[in-house]
């Protein structure tokens, strides 16, 4: 699996052939996936657009676009601060949809929105899901919507052909089966207790968690996120899952380099993708 090539950027005139659900599945078909996250509008939307395209070219298999929210309760300090910077810069949900449309014209990389329940709720969940499909965004990730509350969001997503992603956590235990059975797109496996952000080590038995998910639903891929920042951690997580999600480490590069972040982030994505791709399926 070490010979996986980065997917080529889609030419401007290529038709948007894939539906959202198909495109998410494609992220996992050719080996272990690397999934970077960026907060839209940090430092500005033009930079975000270039970042997403560059990350896709550097080998990202799916890109998570964070729609900023004033009070992102599942995030650690790095992504919290990015959310507030993006909002202070005037970023709105409508602008993020326009950004996604522009990105979709330049690349066929699968895209997911990651935000908090009040953002789509305030927009109107059905309208939000339809707008996602129109803009070519393939999946929706809401960390404050657990299995019990999902129907309000997953129903409209399904109607629009968008995957609604479910989470499992180290504390899920007996809940994993129920969650995995109805999962769509991929299961977001939370590696550690607490909020997002780099950790020096991950002590949870992630292998046991992903094995439980696979047992309950062999068809749905598992991607591991929270706390992953180094190639070694990424490889270790990829060894026991289908993909690795990295957010805070990328956002930190964005903070450090500002508008000049595109090249350093692309280099980081290449390194991480190589580490993940080197892991045998």
């Amino acid at each position: 699996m070490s010979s996986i090539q980065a997917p080529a950027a889609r030419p401007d005139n290529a038709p948007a052939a894939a539906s959202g659900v198909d495109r998410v599945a494609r992220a996992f078909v050719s080996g272990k996936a690397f999934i970077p996250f960026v907060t839209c509008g940090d430092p500005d939307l033009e930079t975000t657009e270039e970042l997403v395209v560059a990350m896709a070219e550097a080998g990202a298999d799916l890109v998570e676009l964070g729609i900023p929210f004033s009070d992102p309760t599942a995030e650690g300090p790095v992504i919290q601060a990015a959310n507030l910077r993006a909002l202070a810069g005037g970023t709105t949900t409508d602008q993020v949809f326009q950004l996604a449309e522009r990105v979709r014209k330049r690349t066929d990389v699968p895209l997911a929105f990651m935000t908090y329940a009040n953002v789509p709720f305030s927009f109107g969940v059905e309208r939000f899901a339809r707008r996602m499909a129109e803009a070519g965004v393939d999946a929706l990730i809401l960390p404050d919507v657990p299995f019990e509350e999902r129907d309000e969001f997953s129903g409209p997503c399904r109607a629009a052909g968008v995957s609604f992603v479910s989470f499992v956590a180290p504390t899920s235990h007996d809940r994993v089966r129920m969650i995995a059975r109805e999962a769509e797109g991929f299961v977001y496996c939370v590696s550690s207790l607490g909020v997002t952000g780099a950790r020096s080590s991950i002590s949870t038995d992630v292998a046991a968690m992903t094995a439980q998910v696979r047992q309950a639903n062999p068809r749905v891929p598992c991607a591991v996120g929270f706390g992953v920042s180094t190639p070694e951690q990424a490889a270790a997580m990829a060894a026991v899952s289908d993909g690795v999600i990295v957010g805070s480490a990328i956002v930190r590069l964005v903070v450090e380099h500002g508008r000049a972040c595109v090249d350093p982030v692309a280099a980081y994505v290449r390194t991480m993708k190589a580490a993940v791709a080197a892991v045998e399926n």
Partner: protein
Amino acid sequence: MTKGRFGVHGGQYIPETLMNAVGELEEAYAHYKEDPEFNRELADLLNNYAGRPSRLYFAERMTEDLGGAKVYLKREDLNHTGAHKINNVLGQALLAKKMGKTRLIAETGAGQHGVATATAAALMGMECEVFMGREDTERQALNVYRMRLLGAQVHAVDEGTATLKDAVSATFREWTTRIDDTHYVLGSVMGPHPFPTIVRDFQAVISREIKQQLAEREGRLPDAVLACVGGGSNAIGAFYHFIDDPSVRLIGCEAAGRGVDGFETAATIATGRLGIFHGMKSYFCQDEHGQIAPVYSISAGLDYPGVGPEHAALHDAGRAEYVPVTDDEAVEAFEYLSRMEGIIPAIESAHAVAHARTLAPAMGKDQIMVINISGRGDKDCAAIARYRGEDLHE
């Protein structure tokens, strides 16, 4: 509809990491609330430690001055630690102890809930950490000292607006980090199910006592019950046993800050709309994009952009009324009750007193109004002095 709904409101909008924790809490509560031994222990704590029942006091001078309804004050300010918060905290701390938890964490705005939690932790030999917005640690420095004195660790929260909503977010984040030995003592009738129900049940002692005390004094129900509303725990406590008595007007007084026409307000029902935040669906002060608004009130305890889901449902059903009260009106009421009855109310409770001053004269002399004085005002003296241009050195 999913669990813990009040009309469309409530629910459990929290990260998966916490779902088993709230599930265990729900199960434990369902068990212990029917357990005679638990109820005996709690009653003993409430009566012999917190000083219940609290008095129902006839405010004769205020009644004469306003010239309308007979005004009674429910004296939650006389509870140990100086506010209604202790009712809920003793219940939750005892429950946490039965569940085998050894550490309590809590958010606090004005500091009253933090002090109550630190007190219960000291009493029960548990660890305690309190999260408080940086701005509030400055507004309520005395309460920070009290919490430390009681053995709690106080974390100043710098994120966001550095007030109550950020303290709540920080406490939820802390809970996701350490669940096994830790119970989150939520201080109001908000957050994910089962908190709005648990907190309401522990605060319902207020209306149970009012009903009984007034029956003894006057032989009848009140015509109106007034309470301030931030998250809404003292208000739901004061309303609960009257909800099925349609002749009793239930009036929640929200913090309008500098007025409901501007941005410097915390009056959620007057200015907010339906949303999802801090684990619940309810009304929230927010902008057109669903971003939670930075709210403002002179009262740190009411400075919150949401309201508990049961209040939202009582509003929808038209069963309770919610009125905005400005900083100016609350400060005047703070001074009024101090001079008129020799009772210094918390600035939060003063919001209810302020509305009573308008409402009582419009009611008949044969009518009865009860104001819930949810806390004492000693903590607010320095801030009110500053508001009046006087600098106190504590």
